[in-house]
């Protein structure tokens, strides 16, 4: 099946070459980081996790969101999703691959990373995160390979794959729950120490992931002969609407508890996020943008007319995706460190090498998606001529 990725149009090869170029640039800067240390990033003794770990957290959500097409199709027999489950699974594979790479580039001693396997420590949530993420990757590789293979042969998929697919549903929930536990179990960081973090992660995942899938389906309709059809896009839009509403609701819950209780160590983080603290206000414009985008998205999604029209639906999906990327990919991780446990208000801005390494990892993910979608569409004979 893999050979399908080796033939393609000029546009396809131009895109692949571009991605390979970005990856090469990322590798060059990663080698610099490897030899001189993580000091080339904007991280410091106060803000010890930053852009890499934030992208990891965001992408776990994108990976988990595949369940939003798999679950309705297999549990509720929503036949309309039959055509796009494979897109969801391939998106999950590429996202998990990026997650693993983002963790890897964040390691201070990457050559020792096997120590996690050599000295397994079940008391560490990072151990469990490694297990659920790799398990999820294996599940999706097996499921997509077997179902697509069957489709190619024109036969129904073997019966044993059904329980594997059913297992992948709770497993998807688990990857984002365990990732939330990484943060929400730390007494040292009041900003993350909230039981709603896990549910919030899931709600934001189930809005941003399907929003991305809608955009992908519409893009594929333009670029290729693949047409997901109107019905699945409408259903996905409804899922995005519910998930985004719940996500905004959870954010408001957190704000209420922190601000009304008025406990200084809880308030100060939100103060830093939305108003700035001691002259440090790097994230303030980003956060207000994220909130404005969330409101815009909800207005467009809750109104059935704008939700159904493709022009406005695209705007709504872009707004959902950008809003959640700012919330999780920029704010959520860094703000846990500001102010520090010693009351210091530090600042963090990613450096150019850090951003280029991250761009390289994103390019790896995009390349994977490109190749996998190319294979899926070629198997179905839906590639543009």
């Amino acid at each position, binding site marked *: 099946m893999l050979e399908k990725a080796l033939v393609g149009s000029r546009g396809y090869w131009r895109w692949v070459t571009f991605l390979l170029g970005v990856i090469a640039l990322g590798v060059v800067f990663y080698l610099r980081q490897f030899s*001189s*240390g*993580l*000091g080339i990033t904007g*991280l*410091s*003794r*106060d803000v*010890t*996790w930053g852009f890499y770990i934030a992208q990891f957290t965001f992408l776990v959500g994108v990976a988990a969101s595949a369940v939003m097409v798999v679950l309705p199709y297999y549990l509720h027999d929503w036949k309309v999703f039959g055509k796009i489950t494979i897109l969801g699974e391939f998106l999950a594979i590429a996202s998990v691959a990026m997650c693993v790479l983002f*963790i890897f580039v*964040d*390691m*201070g*001693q*990457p050559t*020792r*990373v096997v*120590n*996690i396997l*050599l*000295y397994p*420590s*079940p*008391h*560490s*949530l*990072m*151990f469990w995160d*490694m297990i659920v993420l790799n398990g999820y990757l294996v599940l999706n590789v097996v499921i997509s390979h077997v179902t697509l293979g069957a489709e190619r042969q024109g036969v129904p998929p073997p019966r044993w794959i059904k329980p594997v697919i059913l297992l992948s549903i709770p497993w998807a929930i688990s990857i984002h729950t365990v990732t939330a536990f*990484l*943060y929400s*179990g*730390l*007494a*040292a*960081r009041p900003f993350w120490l909230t039981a709603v973090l896990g549910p919030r992660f899931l709600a934001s995942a189930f809005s941003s992931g399907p929003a991305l899938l809608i955009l992908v389906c519409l893009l594929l309709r333009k670029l290729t002969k693949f047409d997901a059809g109107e019905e699945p896009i409408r259903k996905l839009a409804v899922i995005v609407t519910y998930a985004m509403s719940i996500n905004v609701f959870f954010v408001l819950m957190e704000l209420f508890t922190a601000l009304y209780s008025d406990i200084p*160590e809880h308030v100060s983080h939100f103060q830093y996020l939305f108003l700035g603290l001691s002259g440090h206000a790097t994230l303030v414009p980003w956060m207000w943008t994220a909130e404005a985008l969330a409101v815009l998205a909800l207005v467009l999604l809750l109104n059935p007319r704008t939700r159904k029209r493709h022009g406005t639906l695209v705007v709504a999906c872009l707004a959902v995706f950008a809003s959640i990327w700012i919330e999780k990919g920029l704010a959520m991780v860094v703000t*846990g*460190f500001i102010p*520090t*446990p*010693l*009351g*210091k208000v*530090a600042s963090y801005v990613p450096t150019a090498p850090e951003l280029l390494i991250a761009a390289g990892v994103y390019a790896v993910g995009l390349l994977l998606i490109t190749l996998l979608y190319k294979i899926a569409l070629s198997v179905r004979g839906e590639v543009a001529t």
Partner: protein
Amino acid sequence: MGDDRRSFLRRAGWGLACLAGAGSATELAGAFLRTEEETGGGKRLGMVVDLVACAREEGCTKCVEACNAVHNVPSLRDPGHAVKWIWKERFPDAFPDQEAENVLETVTEKPAVVLCNHCDNPPCARVCPTEATWKRPDGIVMMDWHRCIGCRYCMAACPYGSRSFNWVDPRPGLARPSPDYPTRTKGVVEKCTFCDERVDAGEPPACVAACPARAMAFGDLSDPKSEVRRLLRSRFALRRKAALGTRPSVYYLV
């Protein structure tokens, strides 16, 4: 006969599986639920810092200098890359949960010396994915710089900011490294080890030995006759962020 054997084998198999399951379950439960009593040897090394005596030596940094020299703690140009084992903090920053406004200015308006608390229930050790940091039976929270992968989860978990990461190679930050102690390499986390190398040789930690005000004492907190326990009986003492349940082994006399 054949049937008997088969059913015996089946039963034995299930029995073994259950045993193995129960075994790993207890192991797992043990890993999660470490109890207070589980401090092997009954020993629990700790420190008592007399904040009043310390404050009398205004501007003194003898303990910091002694520690830095003994352990090759570098001084780096970028403050964001700083490595700290023991240092001074403003009292309200070291003890944010103490209502310190207008209270005992002789202490609360002076800097407090801070270091790793060698918690009895250390959150850093709980989150470490490789057991590169763990609690020794005598209570010292140790670090294995050979094993640390530099994930910095322990730094996120420490409520005291007591851990430092080597963002860059520390060697250029050391004018004359002490030959008897290793430096660290870039990409690992480090912190105070209560001078495990000196303690194992029967000596007090370097900071305690260097203090001109004799404001620091070191010893076994579980021995009622030890000096640290005698000091704790004599005056009221604080522990940093005691409400978090980490049970620090560093006490501060006020």
